């Protein structure tokens, strides 16, 4: 193991270290119009190293394993040169319990066959073309710390997302799992195709305020932003509207957002963080109140709190975000709406101001105009332009069913999200 060699090279020269060796194997297939555009196989070994001495600290990532000694030597030289300041604390001796949520081996052939099979009937429903990607990972993580912690764990992740196109309409589907058993590209492809067909021949709507139903992909993108803004670092540097709001009500009492270090189908699961702290379950929004800030050891010290096991050496961040389902059926939500829009996906979210939470995002893929509780016709060329605090406080209904979302565009940290109904949401058109 490279990690043992690195440990040997640094242990007498530093006071603290946390080293993680990871060796992701990646299989990837991208396709367009049912044809594979590229297949890729990638194998890597990475070593990341936090080292501290006195009040000095350095974080180094090494990929040149043939020159590991000179890489470590460079890190030690840098450590001597850096300015003194606050140093992260490597977590004391502890035990980790890695949940059995992955496959023993990555089922590459079965997964790729599932993806290819999902295409078989998609053109029968009338779509023009289909574009997507499947990414399969098997990664072993090996942790070693100066405090005597050691842990090895292996994870498998299966990620697939797809878009189907029909005329100017399009639909989106997503399947995310830690096991081949739950990996379901067929449903994702079918959902994308169904939405694409329904979204053909879209009309315009007038700019204004609408009651909207946000499907899991767009709701997940909103909740990912909110969870990220629960990071102490984000709050400190101005990237959060939640500054000075700890303990305050920011959403209706039905809203609960939780971060899980490990969870079934959470494809960013690990039992330890970058400082060797055990990951856990952190309630961020509970009963509509902002109840916890996410910490690493540095932000915890500044805030006089305890680490939540979310390091990120600089910026602590969530692992897998879940939003509890509510008590509404999807049809009930629809029936409540006199005039509104049902939105299936979004893309390209940008903030005008993180402190006030003002942002806009492009409505992507299928969206439908709702009148008197019924879906009337597809709509397009819309932008949701609002603020996060207002959106959160205007959630009126939450669906029972939830779905894991992770895809390239807007949901990078996995989020298990319900459908939500939000009142008075501003939609603009060019």
């Amino acid at each position: 193991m490279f990690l043992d060699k690195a440990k040997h090279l640094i242990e007498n020269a530093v006071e603290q270290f946390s080293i993680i060796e990871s060796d992701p194997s990646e299989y990837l297939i991208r396709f367009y119009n049912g044809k594979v555009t590229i297949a890729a196989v990638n194998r890597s070994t990475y070593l990341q190293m936090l080292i501290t001495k006195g009040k000095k600290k350095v974080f180094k990532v090494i990929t040149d394993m043939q020159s590991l000694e000179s890489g470590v030597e460079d890190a030690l030289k840098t450590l001597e040169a850096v300015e003194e300041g606050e140093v992260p604390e490597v977590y004391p001796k502890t035990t980790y319990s890695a949940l059995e949520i992955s496959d023993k081996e990555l089922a590459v052939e079965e997964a790729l066959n599932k993806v290819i099979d999902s295409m078989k009937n998609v053109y029968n429903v009338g779509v023009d073309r289909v574009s997507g990607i499947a990414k399969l990972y098997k990664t072993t993580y090996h942790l070693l710390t100066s405090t005597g912690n050691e842990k090895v764990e292996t994870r498998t992740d299966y990620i697939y997302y797809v878009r189907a196109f029909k005329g100017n309409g399009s639909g989106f589907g997503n399947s995310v799992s830690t096991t081949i058993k739950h990996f379901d590209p067929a449903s994702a492809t079918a959902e994308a195709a169904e939405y694409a067909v329904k979204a053909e021949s879209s009309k315009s709507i007038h700019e204004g305020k609408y009651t909207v139903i946000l499907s899991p992909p767009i709701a997940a993108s909103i909740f990912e932003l909110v969870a990220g803004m629960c990071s102490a670092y984000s709050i400190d540097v101005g990237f959060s509207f939640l500054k000075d709001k700890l303990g305050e009500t920011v959403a209706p009492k039905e809203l609960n957002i939780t971060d899980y270090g490990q969870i079934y189908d959470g494809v960013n699961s690990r039992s330890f963080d970058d400082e060797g702290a055990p990951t856990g379950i952190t309630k961020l929004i509970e009963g509509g109140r902002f109840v916890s800030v996410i910490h690493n050891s540095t932000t915890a010290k500044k805030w006089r709190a305890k680490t939540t096991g979310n390091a990120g050496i600089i910026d602590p961040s969530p692992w897998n975000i879940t939003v509890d389902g509510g008590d509404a059926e999807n049809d009930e939500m629809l029936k409540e709406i006199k005039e509104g829009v049902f939105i299936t996906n979004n893309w390209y979210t940008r903030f005008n101001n993180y402190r006030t939470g003002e942002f806009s995002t492009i409505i992507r893929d299928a969206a439908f105009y709702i009148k008197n509780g019924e879906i009337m016709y597809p709509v397009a060329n819309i932008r949701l332009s609002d603020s996060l605090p207002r959106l959160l406080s205007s959630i009126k209904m939450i669906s029972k069913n939830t779905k894991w979302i992770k895809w390239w565009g807007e949901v990078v940290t996995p989020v298990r999200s319900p459908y939500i109904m939000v009142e008075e949401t501003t939609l603009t058109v060019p």
Partner: protein
Amino acid sequence: MLEEDLAHFAVQQSSKMGFEYSEARVQRDTIISINLNNGMPDVPIKGELYGIGIRVIYKGAMGFSSTNVLTRESVLDVLENLKRTLEGITATKENEKIKMSEEDILTANWSVDERRRFEDINLDWFLKKSKELDDVAKNEEKIKQRLIRLSGSLELKYFVNSEGTMIKSRIPRYLFTAFITAYDSSDIAQRFIEIGGSGGPEVLDRLKTHEKFTEEIKTITKIVGKRRSIKEGVYNVIVGPEVAGIMAHESIGHPFEADRVRGREGAQGGESYLRDIKSNKIGSAEANISDDPTIPFSYGYFLFDEEGVKARKKELVKGGSVKELLHNRETAGELGIKSNASARASNYSVEPIIRMSNTFVEPGDWTFEEIVKEVKDGVFINSFMEWNIDDRRLNQRYVGFEAYKISNSEISEPVKGVIIETTTLNLWSKLYARSKELEFSAATCGKGDPEQGVPVWTGGPYLLFKDLNLKVR
């Protein structure tokens, strides 16, 4: 040092294994980055990505493989795995046969000029320089939060393909970014600033980083709390080079990537309006937009692309009409034309795809003063914060950060939250005049899955749009 022999080994083995085409890129990216959070350094980060990326064509299908275990055994292992995967695909699906364009066989060894080499710059320099820049803002009473980042990188590459092309290159780059929050009793203003280029550390002085950041800080403190809303409506609008640049990048550069037009990015960045428009006309005769990787010291600088094709300037839109798309060898091969060297890869572990370099609106022949004089009553938007565009690159929005009313042909009071929200064809059809200046901003452009951020410049002169609808946030 790069394992050049291993690149040759990978290409030789690929030929033996029956791949019709292969290329190998050994690439080492070294990165140093330091943050100052209200003057206090975060953990300094040193990192490197070093490995080999191999792209092949097998039975007409494209495959890519990478590893950072730089041994012959490891290269053989990934190639064999890749061949098995490609066998599976080509056996079960009738796949598109990829044909690369015919290109010259080249040998080159090129590098960016640097007065001080990257290897000779230590962390102390980064700390000292970032503190100098932080000093510009730290005593400003209204500025409550400052996140300053100074980073440097060195990209070393050795490229070889089965046709005999061999290119070696060295590109050092430096980037200064700042995220500033200013408060007034009635207003919170936030601003991102990015200044960067390729070269030695002296490139930051060449780009007048200190002077530009000082000017930005003055502006932020001047306008926070003073910005007032205006009525929504139709205005004559002047935009500054930063806004001109993002418009060119988003609404012309991206949709002119030929892989998007073809649909290859359909599930990610999306497709392009060029699939649907009936005419080549994009805008008024003033719409002239280019992409040029050969601008010395630019952030998006390169002389040969990641397929070994010699780089050149591309005129994307000329006199308001489509002139040329951005091509790699795959899209050019499909059309039977030559590539214009637009293939880039952000590191060894990802395939080269079609990318912009330095995308900009060409300067015109007006002075800035003449342009302002042309506008009796209007709005001047010099910089932006929020922006986005749809995945066909038609429906776009730019929200002004530093913006002013123009009254009686004079730039007057600052305005808040003014929004250009329009379509690409409408925007460029309203372009009336371009100034003589040409200024650039640094940015990291994202595309592809796996996500590839590549350094680019966006830029242009001051632009005058006549009768543009403005909204207000």
